[in-house]
C-alpha cells in the first residue's frame, strides 16, 4: 500500500500516536478526574471534622452524672442533662405513637386503595410537606394549640414533632409497601381473605422491616429537632413529668442554649449533649440502613 492518495511531507504515523488536540482533550479529562476525586475528599472532611470534634470535646463530660443529674448554674461544672433526656423521650415517644400509625395507614391508602386524582394530590403534598421549614411547623402549633388553649408543654411539643414525622413516614412506608410482590396479595385474596385481612396479615408483615426502617429515620429526625420545640416546649431547668401545661426541656434545647452562653462549663455540657444526641441519631440511622440493606437483598 505504498501509493497513498494524499501525499504529505509528514511521515506516516501509527494510530496509537495522537495529535496535539487529542492530547489536550485527554489532559483535560485526567485533570477533571483529579478534581472530581478532590471534591469527594473535600466532602468527607467536614463529616470527619464533626465526628472528631464532637467526640473529642464531648466524651470527657459524658459520664453517669451527665445522664442522671440536672444542670446547675451555667458557670458551675458538673451536672447534666437528665431533664432534657426525659423531655426528649417524652415528646419523641408521643409523637411516634401518633405519627407512625397514621403515616402507615396513609401509605396503605396510597398503595392499596389509591386510584384517581386524590392519591396523586396526597402524594404530591406529602412530598412538599417534607420541605416545610421546621420553624414554620413550630409557629403553626403555637398559633393553633399553644396560644389557643393548651399552653406550652410536652403534648404540644409532641404534636409539632408528629407533624414533622408524618410526611417522612408516609413516603418511606409507601415505598416499602410498593415492594411487597403483587403475587402475595393475589394469593391471599385467592385463599378467600378479605382486603383488610390481606393488608393486615399479609402485606404489613411482609413489609414490616421496611416500615420499621422508615419509622426509625423519622424518630431520628424528631430526636434531633430543635426549632419546633423552641416554639412549643419552650424549655425548662427542671425535670418535668406533667404531660401538658408546663414548659419542658429537651436535649436539643439544652444544647442550643448551652452553646450560646460564654461559660466553658455550660459549653462543655453542650458538647456532651451533642455527642449523646449524635450517637442516638447515628445509631438509628445506621440501624435503619442495615435493615434496609439486609431486607433489600432478601427480596
Amino acid at each position, binding site marked *: 500500500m505504498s501509493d497513498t492518495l494524499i501525499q504529505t511531507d509528514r511521515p506516516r504515523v501509527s494510530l496509537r500516536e495522537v495529535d496535539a488536540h487529542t492530547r489536550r482533550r485527554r489532559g*483535560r*479529562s485526567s485533570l*477533571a*478526574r483529579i478534581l*472530581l*476525586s*478532590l*471534591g469527594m475528599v473535600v*466532602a468527607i472532611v467536614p*463529616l470527619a*471534622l*464533626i465526628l472528631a*470534634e464532637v467526640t473529642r470535646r464531648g466524651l470527657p463530660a459524658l459520664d453517669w452524672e451527665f445522664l442522671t443529674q440536672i444542670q446547675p448554674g451555667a458557670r458551675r461544672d458538673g451536672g447534666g442533662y437528665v431533664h432534657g433526656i426525659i423531655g426528649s423521650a417524652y415528646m419523641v415517644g408521643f409523637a411516634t405513637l401518633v405519627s407512625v400509625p*397514621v403515616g402507615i395507614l*396513609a401509605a*396503605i*391508602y*396510597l398503595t392499596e*386503595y389509591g386510584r384517581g386524582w386524590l392519591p396523586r*394530590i*396526597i402524594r*404530591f*403534598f406529602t*412530598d*412538599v*410537606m417534607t*420541605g*416545610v*421549614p421546621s*420553624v*414554620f411547623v413550630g*409557629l*403553626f402549633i403555637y*398559633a393553633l394549640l399553644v*396560644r389557643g388553649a393548651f399552653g406550652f408543654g410536652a403534648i404540644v411539643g409532641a404534636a409539632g414533632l408528629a407533624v414533622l414525622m*408524618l410526611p*417522612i413516614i408516609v413516603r*418511606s412506608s409507601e415505598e416499602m409497601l410498593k415492594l411487597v410482590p403483587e403475587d402475595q396479595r393475589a394469593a391471599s385474596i385467592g385463599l*378467600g*381473605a378479605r*382486603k*383488610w*385481612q390481606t393488608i393486615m*396479615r399479609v402485606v404489613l408483615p411482609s413489609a414490616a422491616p421496611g416500615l420499621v426502617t422508615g419509622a426509625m429515620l*423519622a424518630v431520628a429526625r424528631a430526636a434531633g429537632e*430543635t*426549632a419546633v420545640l*423552641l*416554639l412549643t416546649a*419552650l424549655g425548662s431547668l427542671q425535670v418535668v413529668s406533667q404531660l401538658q401545661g408546663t414548659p419542658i426541656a429537651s436535649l*436539643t434545647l439544652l444544647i*442550643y442554649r448551652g*452553646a*450560646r452562653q460564654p461559660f466553658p462549663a455550660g459549653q462543655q455540657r453542650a458538647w456532651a449533649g*451533642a455527642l449523646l*444526641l*449524635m450517637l442516638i*441519631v447515628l445509631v438509628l*440511622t445506621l440501624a*435503619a440502613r442495615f435493615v434496609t440493606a439486609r431486607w433489600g437483598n432478601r427480596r
Partner: protein
Amino acid sequence: MSITSTSPDRRPDLRPTGSGRWADPLFRAIALAAGVSVLLVLGLMIGSTARDAWPVFEYQGFVSFFTSSEWNAGSSRGEFTGVYGAFAFIYGTLVSSAIAIAIALPLALAISLYINRIAPRRFRQALSYTVELLAAIPSVVYGLWGLLFFSPVVLQPISRVLIGTFGNVPLIGWLFEGPARNVNYFIAGNVLAIMILPIITAIAREVMAQTPEDQIQAAYGMGATDWEVMRRVIVKRSFPGIVGATMLGLGRALGETIAVAMLIGGQQRWGASLFFSGQSMAGHIASTFQDAAPETVDALIAVGVGLFVITVIVNVLARLLVWRIGRVAGDAAL
C-alpha cells in the same frame, strides 16, 4: 372422575366472617381518613398561621412588610405599636442560601460524578452512605460545631484571606468588606452548604445513575474521553434532575433554622458585605420568639408565612422537576 370435596387446610384467621361485610369498607375509610389527614394538617397549617399573620400585614402594609428593613418590636398586648419591616431578614435568608448553593452545587456534582463513574465499584455504596450521614447529623449539632469550632478554626482564617485579597478590588470589593466577626452570612452559608450537600448529592447521583449505558458506550465509541462523557452525556441528560435537586437543597437552606440562628450574626439589620453579621427569617423567629410580646409574635408568624410561601414555591417547582424523572426512593428521609 371423582370430585373431592375436602376443603383445603385454611388458616382460620383468613376465613371470611360475617363481620367482613362491614370491616372492609370501614378499613378503607380509616385508611382514607389517614391519607386525607396529611392534606388536613397542611390546610390547618396555612389557615391558622395566615389568620394570625393577617392583621400584621394589614397594619404594616403588605409591600412595606417585605421591603422595609426597619424592625422595631412593640410590646403591646392587644394592638400594634411596633414597626415591622422584614427585608433585612429576607436578605439574610437569600444571601446565606445563595452562598450555600454556590459551594454545595459544584461539590455535589463532583461527588455524584465521582461515585457514579470514577470510584471503584465496591466503594460506591459506602461512599454514598458516608455522604448521606451528613444529613443525619442534627441541625443543633451543626450550630454548636460551627460556632465553637468550624468558624473560629477553619472559616475565620479563610475569611481573612478573602477579605485581604478581594476587599480592595473595584466592582466586587463591597462584597468582601471586613472585618468578619465570628458569626456572619458567610459562616452560616458555609455550614448550610455542608447541610444541604447530602440532599443535592443523593438526588443528583440517582438521576445520573439513570443515564442509559448505551448512550455512555456510544459516546466512548465515538472517541469521547471520560470527562467528555460526563459533561456532554451524563450531566447534560440529567440537567432537569440536577436543577430539581438544587432547588430541593435551596428549599432546605432557606428554611433551616437553628444552625443559621446560631451562626448568622444576630443584628436586625442587613449589610451588603458577605461578612456582615445579619439575620435570616427563620433565625429571627427562633432568636426573638421567647421574649416577644403578643403583637410581635404575630409579626413573627407573618415572617414565618413569608418564609413558608417562598419555600413552598421552591419545593413545588423542585418536585415537579424531579417527578418528571420519577420519584427518588428514600429522599424523604434526607
